[in-house]
């Protein structure tokens, strides 16, 4: 069964540094998402992306964050000038149709640790 893959599985970064989290969505999917999950808490929506542009974003997704689909297969989340509170699991997800019509397929996440 096709799956969403994320790399790296664990990223350790110094506070203030930039980090790029990478995702390969399922190949025929059209909608892409990033979520984060602080340890022990709920999954929080960050951003959705369709047709090479952001379609929706949450309050969390401020100017520190950006997303890109640099080629036909990768979907990245960049966090500039990381803060301690950015430490969390970051999940990528994809779907063929919108979230109004079908569930998303999630990767197993990247654990981001800011020191």
């Amino acid at each position, binding site marked *: 069964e096709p799956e969403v893959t994320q790399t790296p599985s664990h990223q350790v970064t110094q506070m203030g540094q930039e980090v790029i989290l990478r995702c390969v969505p399922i190949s025929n999917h059209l909608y892409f998402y990033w*979520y984060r999950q602080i340890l022990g808490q709920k*999954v929080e929506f960050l951003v959705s992306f369709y047709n090479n542009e952001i379609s929706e974003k949450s309050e969390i997704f401020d100017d520190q964050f950006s997303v890109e689909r640099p080629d036909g297969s990768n979907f990245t989340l960049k966090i500039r000038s990381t803060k301690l509170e950015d430490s969390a699991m970051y999940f990528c997800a994809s779907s063929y149709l919108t*979230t*109004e019509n079908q*569930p998303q397929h999630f990767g*197993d996440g990247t654990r981001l640790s800011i020191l």
Partner: protein
Amino acid sequence: GESVGLHLPTLSVQEGDNSIINCAYSNSASDYFIWYKQESGKGPQFIIDIRSNMDKRQGQRVTVLLNKTVKHLSLQIAATQPGDSAVYFCAEKVTFGIGTKLQVIP
């Protein structure tokens, strides 16, 4: 209302018993709901979904009930197995609930 914090609601169930996990939502216009299962160290995994034009939907060993009057959703797992131990989230599009940790006692 939902609580927010580090302490997930926990449901402990004897193996073989049925489990019922509950979820409340606030937006009466919500029309599509999903249940996800999250095992330790993994991403959320789709279990079952339901649209607002339905009250009940059944899958393999799982049933979702939707009560639009009281804005309540439940997930029922029949004959709970140790492999069902996980955190279960209800979601409405991109918005997730806080989750319930299901512990199955062998």
